[in-house]
């Protein structure tokens, strides 16, 4: 069992975190699109936003742990066949994925807490409001949240296509090493 990363590849924790975050991001995006168009009398009207906010908060915590784990582990080196522009592109892309995901989660938090209300996470615990009362805060945060959500999905699509390109065209280990630790 390779829990930790090595110079050659990712460990189970990094791989698990990657796919957990990926699944959450797709789920939150779909749920977000779904919930904003719900009819007032839909049985989902209260639950969909509750799940969206709760999962969003939990994802934020997971991402903090992911950053910590990333800092405490060796970073696998790129497969030898990667060109310099691919390496640079990947670095910039990964940085943007992290940055946008964090900004996205923070902007969502700022919508729901704009009036000082806390966010309840599955009625399990609450995250209190901090920044409140910016003029039209929920509107500003809402616009940012929507734009960043689409930007993130576009980036994710590029990220996924790049992985497929490495797998099927370059036939290298880029995708496979995010599926299981390299022996």
């Amino acid at each position: 069992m390779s829990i930790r990363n090595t110079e050659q590849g990712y460990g189970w924790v990094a791989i698990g975190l990657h796919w957990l975050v990926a699944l959450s991001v797709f789920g939150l995006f779909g749920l977000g699109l779904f919930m904003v168009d719900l009819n007032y009398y839909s049985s989902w009207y209260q639950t969909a936003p509750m799940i969206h906010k709760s999962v969003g908060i939990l994802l934020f915590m997971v991402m903090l742990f992911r950053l910590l784990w990333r800092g405490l582990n060796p970073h696998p080196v790129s497969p030898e066949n990667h060109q310099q522009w691919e390496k640079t592109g990947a670095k910039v892309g990964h940085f943007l994925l992290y940055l946008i995901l964090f900004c996205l989660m923070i902007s969502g938090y700022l919508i729901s807490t704009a009036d000082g209300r806390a966010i309840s996470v599955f009625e399990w615990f609450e995250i209190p409001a901090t920044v409140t009362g910016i003029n039209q805060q929920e509107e500003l945060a809402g616009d940012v949240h929507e734009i960043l959500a689409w930007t993130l999905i576009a980036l994710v699509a590029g990220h996924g296509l790049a992985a497929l390109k490495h797998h099927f065209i370059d036939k290298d280990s880029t995708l496979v090493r995010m599926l299981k630790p390299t022996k």
Partner: protein
Amino acid sequence: MKTQLKAALLLASTMGLALPASAADYTIDTRGAHASINFKVNHLGYSFVVGRFDTFSGDFSYDQTAPEATKVNVKIDATSVNSNHAERDKHIRSDDFLAVDQFPEASFSSTKYQANGDDGGKLYGQLTLRGVTKEIVIDVTKVGEGKDPWGGYRAGFVGSTELVMKDFGIPTNLGPSSTTVAMDLVIEGIKK
């Protein structure tokens, strides 16, 4: 001489009374927030959501001796809707309700006033909301008028009216008990 002066004074005062009363102009006291535009919508048939528009401005002219000449103009910042719940306010501003991106301002301009002789009356006017202009009637009750403690002169009214959301193009169906909005207006003016 003395009688002449008396006669002149008497003449002057009767002339003064005979002159048509000139309505005084008032600025609605939004600065001191002694005026508010409140709304109330039934929730599911069980309760009410109460909110208000925080930002508006306006003026009116009014003379208690000639109430029919009353005129009122108010501009309302539709984006300032406040129901004490940010997520709901965001929803009210969206296209589902007020579409404030497209229609950031609502306005009311009176067309006539029908006094009922009992310090109240009906104020008719054009309300523009969500880009739709419709005649509405506001039931008005005068609260009072007179000097304030700081050297000014004030007059105040309360008003109420009911708007059908559909009439103003609001597309969202909130249920059978919630098709209308009760508007509750509190207007205090300071004489200009």
